């Protein structure tokens, strides 16, 4: 329950960051998808079903404000969460290089997913150049900063589990 509340708070913080702080301070090319980082952290650290449920929830939150028909971010995040949870046995998750590579790859998947969905709905970007610039910028910035955010989330998890152990030992 504590874990769920923690991630709910983090998700709300990320949502506020996306909807208020990013537009005020950052150009679209430099915006890291904090939800994607959360989804990947959950997929790396928790069992698959939990990660998928939270990915679905985060996708639904991300869909708020999008001019698309249907709920497509849940599908994109579910696919990424599934991929990450399947590959986590084969990835050296302690290596920041691997994390950077995987974050970049997932940003690419997200971007292509959005592009594909827009294409299916006869919508899109007026010019492909803008989309490619946006995607390239985001891949680079996510690969650079994402591992640091993952490290921060790992630290939060450690504190949380230490806190839980401390509380339980006190109760005993």
């Amino acid at each position, binding site marked *: 329950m504590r874990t769920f509340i923690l991630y709910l708070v983090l998700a709300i913080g990320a949502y506020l960051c996306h909807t*208020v*702080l*990013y537009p005020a301070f950052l150009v679209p090319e430099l915006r890291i998808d904090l939800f994607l980082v959360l989804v990947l952290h959950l997929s790396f650290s928790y069992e698959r079903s939990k990660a998928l449920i939270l990915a679905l929830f985060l996708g*639904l939150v991300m869909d708020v404000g999008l*001019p698309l028909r249907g709920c497509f971010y849940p599908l994109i995040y579910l696919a990424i969460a599934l991929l990450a949870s399947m590959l986590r046995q084969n990835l050296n998750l302690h290596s920041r290089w691997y994390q950077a590579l995987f974050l970049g790859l997932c940003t690419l998947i997200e971007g292509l997913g959005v592009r594909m969905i827009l294409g299916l709905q006869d919508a899109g970007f007026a010019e492909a150049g803008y989309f490619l610039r*946006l995607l390239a910028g985001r891949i680079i910035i996510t690969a650079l900063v994402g591992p640091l955010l993952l490290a921060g989330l790992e630290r939060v998890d450690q504190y949380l589990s230490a806190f839980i152990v401390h509380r339980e030992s006190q109760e005993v």
Partner: protein
Amino acid sequence: MTSQARKFIIPILIFLLALSLISANLHSRENMSFFESLVVGITSPVQKAVWGVIGGISNIWRGYFYLVGLEKENQVLKRELQELKLEVNRYREAHLANERLRALLNFKKSIATPLLPAQLVAFDPAGWFQTILIDKGRNDGVVRDMAVVSAEGLVGRVIGVSNHHAKVLLILDGNSAVDAYIQRSRARGVLVGLGLELCLLKYVQRNEDVQVGDQVISSGMGGVFPKGLLVGTVKEVVRGSSGLFQRVEVEPAVNFGRLEEVLVVIQSPPEEPAMAGTQKRP
């Protein structure tokens, strides 16, 4: 159920749930879903507060911090000056808000249809699109496809409503399409967003007279946007050696980076959907 079976069944169930949500939402996006309304309802007060804090910080930054560089022996005077500056800044902010609201009021008087003032609450969370959330919704009479304007010009149109909020697709988005014309030469085209504070007036024939600095006005075709609203100014015109059309880049009249208050044009949207490529793409 064995753990091995659970390992496969739970992801499949979750994916099926996601697919059913997609199919449920594909039919109509007139109203925001329950979940969307819930998220917007919970987060919008915080978003408004954060916007307030950001506005306050930027005002302090503009009016106060960069002035700090005075001599140490003037500490007392400096403090006094700073206090006065803060106060002046508060007055200036009030004055600017007054001017903005006065401009909105004048604009409201100049346009025949009733207008509903609204405040910006949030931007699109994904960052791929150009949408905003405003603090007026179904309970205030806002419905899908109503035009949204500001004192400077056209902002966008409503694409989804909940009881107290509405989602607006800005003219900057690639999925927005506004039938517009050049005010001077009456050359017509369809304005689509290029994403970054820039639009493209598409389908303007090569032989049409378009010059840098020309004003672009909404034509009123399609029934969503009122006729004669300023959309922007021509920034660049490129006539290639071949092709039917010229490339006309338009700088929007509205400064979207500083958008705070908007007006929703309260009029019934058209019953029949407009033709593809005019004003109702997504």
